[in-house]
């Protein structure tokens, strides 16, 4: 089955990104496909390469990049939300790309299920 994922909250402030990550990992382990992960609202902050958590904490951004690399995930950051919050190509972590809201709608059309994680 093809899943589309929406993440509306940034890392560390809210559990949404953690839950979404563990959901994606479990779905992939079960042989499902993640069609796209769309980062919206403060969720765009999950894509900041400049994030430096303490070493004894999980690295949420790096974890997404790694999962994307291993499974060829499409991590899309909403351009309108990103520009509002200072996320640009220059500070984008590996595996993420910036694109329009149409990518969210398209995920809704293409995926069998859409799951939203947020506050």
């Amino acid at each position, binding site marked *: 089955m093809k899943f589309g994922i929406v993440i509306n909250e940034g890392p560390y402030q809210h559990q949404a990104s953690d839950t979404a990550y563990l959901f994606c990992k479990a779905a992939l382990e079960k042989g499902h496909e993640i069609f796209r992960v769309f980062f919206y609202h403060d969720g765009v902050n999950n894509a900041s390469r400049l994030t430096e958590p303490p070493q004894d904490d999980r690295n949420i951004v790096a974890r997404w990049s790694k999962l994307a690399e291993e499974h060829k995930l499409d991590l899309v950051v909403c*351009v*309108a939300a990103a*520009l509002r919050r200072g996320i640009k190509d220059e500070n984008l972590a590996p595996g993420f790309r910036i694109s*329009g*809201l*149409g990518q969210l709608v398209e995920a809704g059309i293409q995926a069998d299920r859409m799951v939203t994680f947020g506050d």
Partner: protein
Amino acid sequence: MASIEVGGKSYETDEEGYLVNLAEWNPDVGNYIAKEEKVDMTDNHWEVVNFLREYYDEYQIAPAVRVLTKAIGKKFGAEKGNSQYLYDLFPYGPAKQACKIAGLPKPTGCV
């Protein structure tokens, strides 16, 4: 921050030349931006630009091209309600170019 000089007054713009403060707009500023864009403003051009400003005043957004086309057709006649007509007036697109001349914000959320 960039700026443009029109009639001895300075207007702030963003890097792409969109007016920063929408309230500062006046027809001279529109004409100036049009010249920069190499658009020769005719009555037909002003019709669209003025329509965009009225639309923005009323709804606080610049309309999507599809919505603009339909609305123009309804208001000014079917022969004007098609994207060919609008692209002939504004070769770089009614959303980008006409909005810029009208002093409206850059259309975001591009598909």
